[in-house]
């Protein structure tokens, strides 16, 4: 079955080609065929993934690595790159939830996009293209193919954010996403080129993961640090960390299923995947790991503070995504690679669920997205309410739900990560509290109390159709029970996830133990192994749970009991409130420091050089020749006598020549 791995990306590709090229005719004949093709393609991919995954499980742990080379892509002298797929625990783990959650979102999109006028087939073609790129990213066995998928998901993100491009704001948001991603990709590409050049000098002309990691020690530690940091810059753009997270909140301009799929579950986790895949490289560079951890923690806190004050339901979820991604990077940064990946899995479940529920709410409210105009939807949309509540409990980290186990694992690993813990752990805990608070704020504002919408909007409120609620129910189920596979040993579970990912991540941990260079924030797992005290872990779990309850309680008080409290707080510290509401003015800062200077330089090059110099040169040449023509025209005056004079001059010249020269 392993040799059929090429089918996984091929099905969505076939979907793209059919829907993209023939979509218009298909849509005219039989509109539902469009979504049958698209969802069928992803569904088939999921089935193949499932088959390969089960077959992988049958193998013993050391043998779980299979490299399938499809065909050679580039062959230039000593360097060659091929299209090949790597079947190992990490890639299969990722592929499972990418195709699975992707399939559920495809089904949800049927109901959401059915009544849209602007091209049903176009949407599904883009969505399938995205799946194709993401699967390539995740399954690739070399850096180059992975980068192809990386860029591909960026393109699809742009296409889908700007899906309703007739509204200029959406197009601008799409452009912002793409350009920010490109900035990150630029640094990513520099890192890639550095790596391939340096390794090539030592004779290793291959970009396959296995080859690069085996020969990683050929590079000096400083070079590895530099490469890791460059890669991480690319990841900050893709996975929305400081400094390049600015595109994600604006990306909410796209349809909600897009937000659910791309900006919650799959594309933004590409950065996490990449860092986890390169865990060997990162483990060799404690500085890079430290940077990853610190950036992750700070992003988590920053995004959480901004989410406290946002009034748009999708914006809150967007900042919540940024915050949770920060968590994942924090986990990766302290060496807990498996914990980070586990959080990716659970986050994909509940974040996709939350976005889809918000989509149902927006759909029911006829496009209203401001939470201040919602309320009291609990009775009218029960399924949505209950599934969204489950998702919220999961993201807040309520005990027993999947989010609790994954978040707790990360918090434990952060706490026991050595010298950095005293800085990182309080930030993480504070963020957890804020997360609980603003998520429940969202729930209370949207579903409880009286309905603050207008009369006609209230008439239209209805529960979503079955095609939209079925995925909600499935994801809610997974949000509750999906954490079972990761229950840590301290609670009696087996931590299947960690053991499963050991062959890929365990090497990283091994390197971690070996690297002894100086002060590192992340002598991590060594400490973790040493301090494996169950009581300490339980104490931390109780603290976390307490913090979560505190957050929920505060939210309850402020939005259910004493409804004037939010305004009181806002009035007491207006500058802080405004700062948080305006996202810490980061966008404006970027505008002033980066965008405006670039704009001025561009304008100078345009008006000063392009128009004056280059156009002047070209037009000047033409004008010069025209002037020559104008001057020469005078010779043709139309007067016969003048012509006779010119005859005469010629005759004289001839005669003079014959007489005096010859």
């Amino acid at each position, binding site marked *: 079955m392993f040799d059929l791995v090429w089918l996984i990306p091929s099905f969505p590709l076939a979907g793209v080609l059919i829907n993209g090229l023939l979509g218009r005719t298909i849509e005219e004949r039989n509109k539902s065929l469009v979504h049958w093709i698209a969802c069928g393609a992803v569904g088939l991919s999921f089935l193949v993934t499932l088959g390969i995954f089960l077959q992988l499980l049958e193998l013993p742990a050391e043998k779980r690595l299979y490299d399938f080379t499809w065909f050679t892509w580039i062959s230039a002298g000593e360097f060659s790159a091929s299209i090949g797929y790597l079947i190992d625990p990490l890639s299969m783990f990722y592929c499972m939830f990418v195709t699975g959650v992707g399939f559920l979102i495809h089904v949800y999109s049927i109901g959401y996009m059915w009544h849209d006028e602007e091209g049903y087939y176009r949407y599904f073609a883009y969505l399938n293209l995205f799946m194709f790129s993401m699967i390539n990213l995740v399954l690739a066995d070399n850096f180059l193919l992975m980068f192809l998928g990386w860029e591909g998901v960026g393109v699809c993100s742009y296409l889908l954010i700007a899906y309703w491009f007739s509204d200029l704001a959406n197009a601008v948001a799409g452009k912002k996403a793409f350009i920010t991603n490109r900035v990150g990709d630029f640094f990513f590409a520099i890192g890639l080129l550095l790596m391939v050049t340096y390794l090539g000098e030592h004779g290793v002309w291959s970009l396959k993961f296995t080859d690069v990691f085996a020969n990683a020690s050929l590079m000096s530690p400083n070079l590895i640090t530099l490469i890791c940091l460059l890669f991480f810059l690319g990841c900050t753009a893709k996975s929305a960390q400081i400094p390049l997270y600015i595109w994600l909140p604006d990306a909410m301009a796209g349809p909600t299923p897009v937000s659910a799929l791309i900006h919650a579950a799959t594309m933004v986790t590409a950065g996490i995947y990449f860092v986890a895949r390169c865990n060997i490289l990162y483990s060799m560079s404690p500085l890079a790991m430290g940077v990853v951890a610190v950036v992750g923690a700070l992003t988590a806190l920053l995004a959480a503070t901004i989410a406290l004050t946002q009034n748009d339901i999708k914006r809150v979820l967007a900042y919540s995504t940024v915050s949770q991604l920060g968590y994942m990077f924090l986990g990766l940064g302290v060496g807990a690679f498996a914990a980070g990946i586990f959080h990716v899995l659970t986050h994909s479940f509940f974040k996709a669920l939350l976005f889809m529920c918000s989509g149902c709410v927006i759909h029911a409210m006829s496009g209203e997205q401001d939470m201040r105009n919602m309320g009291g939807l609990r009775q009218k949309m029960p399924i949505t309410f209950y599934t969204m509540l489950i998702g919220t409990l999961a993201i807040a980290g309520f005990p027993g739900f999947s989010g609790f186990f994954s978040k707790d694992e990360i918090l434990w690993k952060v706490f026991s990560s050595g010298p950095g813990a005293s800085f990182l752990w309080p930030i993480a805990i504070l963020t957890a509290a804020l997360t609980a608070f603003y998520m429940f704020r969202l729930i209370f504002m949207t579903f409880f109390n009286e309905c603050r919408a207008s009369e006609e909007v209230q008439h239209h409120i209805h529960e979503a159709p079955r095609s939209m609620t079925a995925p909600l129910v499935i994801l809610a189920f997974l949000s509750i029970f999906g954490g079972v596979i990761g229950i840590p040993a301290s609670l009696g579970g087996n931590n299947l996830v960690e053991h499963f990912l050991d062959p890929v991540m365990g090497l990283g941990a091994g390197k971690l133990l070996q690297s002894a260079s100086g002060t590192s924030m992340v002598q991590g797992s060594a400490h973790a192994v040493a301090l494996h005290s169950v009581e300490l872990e339980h104490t931390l779990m109780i603290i976390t749970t307490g913090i979560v309850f505190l957050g929920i309680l505060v939210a309850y008080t402020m939005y259910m009991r004493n409804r004037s409290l939010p305004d009181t707080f806002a009035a007491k510290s207006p500058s802080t409130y405004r700062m948080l509401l305006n996202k810490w003015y980061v966008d404006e800062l970027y505008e002033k420091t980066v965008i405006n200077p670039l704009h001025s330089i561009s304008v100078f090059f345009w008006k000063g050089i392009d128009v004056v110099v280059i156009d002047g040169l070209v037009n000047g040449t033409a004008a010069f020749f025209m002037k020559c023509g104008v001057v020469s025209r005078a010779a*043709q*005056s*139309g007067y*016969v*006598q003048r012509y*006779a004079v010119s005859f*005469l001059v010629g005759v004289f010249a001839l005669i003079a020549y014959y007489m005096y020269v010859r």
Partner: protein
Amino acid sequence: MTDYQSIYLALSAILFAIGVLGVIVRKDAIVVFLCIEIMLGAVNLAFVTFARANQSAEGLFMVMCIMAVAGAEAAVGLAIFVLLYRKTGTINIDKFNLLKY
């Protein structure tokens, strides 16, 4: 002064020059035409002189041809002048610069 041929040739040259001058300076088309005839006459003189000097009849034959051509040219040219006069009412060649750029 046994060199009479030079006198005839010099005379021919002077007459030719006068003809050229007339063509360039005068504005009236008929007068320009007359000056062309002066030029042709001067050339005839030169031809006859050379025929006399070289003892051959070729030069004289050439003169005959030139006269025939002058006659033909006079006919067609004057017909054109008449036509021009009919169309525009003037025969001043300064007025005819329609072929300018």
